[in-house]
């Protein structure tokens, strides 16, 4: 199966130079959510994990 081209952004939508752009300009809800989390320091592994985020891969 072929995957599609990611949607291009117009220059007018680009609001920041930062690697983590303003999430207002993003068309992807999932991407906006992740950027907010990384920006807010949700990157580091937390001290414990809920079921969605415990470490085992099964």
């Amino acid at each position, binding site marked *: 199966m072929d995957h599609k081209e990611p949607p291009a952004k117009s220059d007018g939508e680009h609001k920041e130079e930062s690697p983590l*752009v303003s999430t207002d300009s993003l068309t992807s809800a999932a991407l906006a959510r*992740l950027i907010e989390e990384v920006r807010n320091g949700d990157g580091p*592994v937390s001290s414990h994990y809920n079921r969605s985020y415990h*470490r*085992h891969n099964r």
Partner: protein
Amino acid sequence: MVAIDTVLLKVASRCNLDCGYCYVYNMGDTGWRAQPKRMSHVVLSAAAENLAELAAAQRRPLSVVLHGGEPLLLGVPALSDLFSRLRSTLPRDCDIHVQTNGLLLDDELIGVLVRHQVGVSISFDGPSAVHDEFRVDRRGRGSHSRVTAAIERLRRHPGATTLFTGILCVVDPRADPAEVYAALKATGAPSVDFLYRDGNRSRLPFGKEAVDSIEYGRWMCGLLDVYLSDPAPPRARILDDMLKLLLGGRGEKEGVGLTDYGIVVIDTDGRITKNDTLKVAYAGADQFVESWSVLRNRLVDVVNRPEFGAYHELQRPTAEVCRACPDLHVCGGGMPAHRWQDDNGYNNPSVFCADQKLLIEHMRRWLVRARIAA
């Protein structure tokens, strides 16, 4: 001291399904045959004491995951007793979870889970045609309708809505990722996760023609497109972890990223073993040479032993090509079992290396188009 964040309790060594791809029963390891069918009261007590001591000693919470086999086969009375014991001995910030196929999830059991605040994740592969090809019972009957009914029962229970934490889906690279995603999202689960079919470099995963073929990578790229285009997406753990790593954050799941993880398994007879997914490398690969058991040993001592340390180090890829790879901080070298090759052990890139490279490249293209550096 190795910090443990995830403990798998194999409370039942048998299963009421016979999934064709199961790494516990259908990939050559027969260790389950020597196990008692269910964890005894004595082992459950010793395990609970051990875990409480470990959590206190490492001053860091851990997640306890009831796993199997099918953990709900332990039965309502024993499960209820175990949860009470764990809740009374573990620090409050330790979570308890069940990974289940859902077949036994009736209202009585859901009530027990609610009472003890036990998170529930259900194995579900999507549309019935996909799910029922491999997730069958011992008569060969598909389980899709029974699992969807269980999910609905869980969702209807007023106390259980916050406990339904996720769906675990095994990828069939022949399926349509958009259809699978839609079926998973329709369950209402707040989080979904996707697992590659197990295999290694000497025994290729289902659907993969060669070590360097990209069937899974193409599938995941299709899934990524659907996910990132969804205006109201659930969480998708593997995609979220990898995207976060590209964005400068950190992942949490084993097998991606370079954040240290600590996983230990307590088998049904009380034996302390390595990550059970190592069974995918070869039969018995999850066993320590030293025969540790919660009946004779203390976990706080075991995690400090050299053999445990060597197992813990296995998560780091050793192949030169991996160590020099610019994508290593995202893929992490994959799961150790997937690096296995009969003639040189784990000293290889993952059998999914080409797939992961394709996916990472596609993620980068998404980020570039969104004007995000990665």
